[in-house]
């Protein structure tokens, strides 16, 4: 990125380096969110609907894991993926893949814990009816997920917010490599440490704008969905 340009200038001129950073940030956060959703919603549904020994402890654990410190996760993933570590032969340290892994670890508990609460609350309401209608277990889960979709979308947005804002884990496992693993948040950290606070703030504003846009898109999708579903 050009040293003396303000963030606004970079955005308006379509600076390719800036846009590459934005694309990478979205790729990593959205990928992590997608994987977390695929893992977290079924886990949440399972815990919500199944009685098993230690269920209460699992719920407490899921809720607690929402507060996993990113920098600790980053360190743990780093040690796993380091060449001297158990998964070193994969050679994925300092790559976007490692960053997606770290963020997935952070976001999955959020999705699972919040999905569990949503589904459990809805199940309490629907249980009698679905049982009386002799609805099978798989159908129950899909019904609860569908009918709870608005709360679940908010859950996904919370997960996305967490991923998009995160810097501690991805800077450790990604290495903040220029043109390769530098995201908006790690770029902000870098520009701050270089003393270019104006550029850092500008990037920060751009990041917030992007997160807002994602939320607006989610709202728009809901409106369209309501129109179609009638």
């Amino acid at each position, binding site marked *: 990125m050009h040293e003396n340009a303000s963030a606004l200038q970079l955005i308006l001129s379509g600076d390719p380096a800036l846009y590459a950073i934005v694309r990478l940030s979205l790729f990593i956060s959205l990928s992590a969110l997608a994987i977390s959703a695929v893992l977290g919603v079924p886990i949440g549904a399972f815990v919500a609907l199944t009685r098993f020994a230690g269920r209460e402890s699992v719920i407490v654990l899921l809720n607690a894991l929402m507060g996993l410190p990113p920098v600790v996760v980053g360190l743990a993933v780093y040690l796993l993926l380091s060449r001297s570590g158990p998964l070193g032969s994969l050679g994925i340290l300092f790559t976007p893949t490692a960053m997606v892994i770290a963020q997935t670890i952070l976001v999955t508990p959020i999705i699972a814990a919040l999905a569990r609460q949503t589904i459990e609350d809805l199940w309490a309401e629907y249980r009698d009816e679905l049982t009386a209608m002799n609805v099978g277990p798989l159908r129950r889960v899909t019904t609860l997920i569908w009918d709870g979709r608005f709360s679940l979308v908010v859950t996904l947005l919370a997960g996305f917010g967490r991923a998009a804002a995160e810097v501690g884990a991805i800077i450790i496992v990604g*290495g*903040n490599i220029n043109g390769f693993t530098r995201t908006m948040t790690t770029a902000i950290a870098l520009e701050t440490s*270089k003393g270019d606070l104006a550029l850092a703030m500008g990037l920060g504003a751009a990041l917030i704008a992007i997160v807002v846009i994602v939320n607006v898109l989610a709202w728009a999708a809901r409106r369209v969905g309501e129109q179609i579903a009638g």
Partner: protein
Amino acid sequence: MLKRVILILAAVAAVAPFPAGQAPAQEKSIVVASTTSTQDSGLFGYVLPIFKQKTGIEVKVVAQGTGQALDTARRGDADVVFVHAKSAEEKFLAEGFSLKRYPVMYNDFVLIGPQSDSAGVKGKDIVAALQTIKAKAAPFISRGDRSGTNIAELKLWQDAGIDIAAAKGPWYREIGQGMGAALNMASASNAYVLSDRGTWLAFKNRGDLVIVVEGDKRLFNQYGVMLVNPAKFPSVKKDLGQQFIDWLISPEGQKVIAGYKINGQQLFYPNANDPSA
């Protein structure tokens, strides 16, 4: 039901065109563990594209403090290290993590402080300046992160005859972070801080800070580069890494390094030919 399927597919399609745009695995690349001073000064931003154009090799720089960079290499997570603390580098060699150290360039450290210079240390003698700072308990920011700059700072306290570990008080603030963060903090609290000239020249948040001591021979700062020993880590890309090193110390590479300037001022002075460096 069909409508739902369409919606889900649309959502997936919306997310799908976000490929990382990452180059495929066949691309030639190496990982270089280096210091924040070489990154924050902008040297790599200038030098690496030239190298890539010539050789097609993508150099991925992970910028950490010298100590951290060497540790990254000790774990086999880098192919090349490029740092500036000769004693730490020689220890690295002695441990067998590299087979040869190549001097590349030097610059110097400068003592940065508030323009008002309340402790009155301005001058050309770094040792005298440090003694004054300690005597007056003037606020001083230390990187405290085993970086090259930190190692140099600690050696200077030693040269000044001060056992800083015992003598430090609330005026001596160890922050455990990089040069930029240290400069930010010095700017915010009108404190003194030792910096490499390159990072200082590129630093934008100077506030009230200026150079108060420079030119002392003891502020000399040598950079060296080493290939990580492939015998320790077979995954090290030794051919590509050696190509990078060879280019850095070649006349062409040395000329490129000398050519990096901020506001017309040269930051780094190539000295690969100096056997004592």
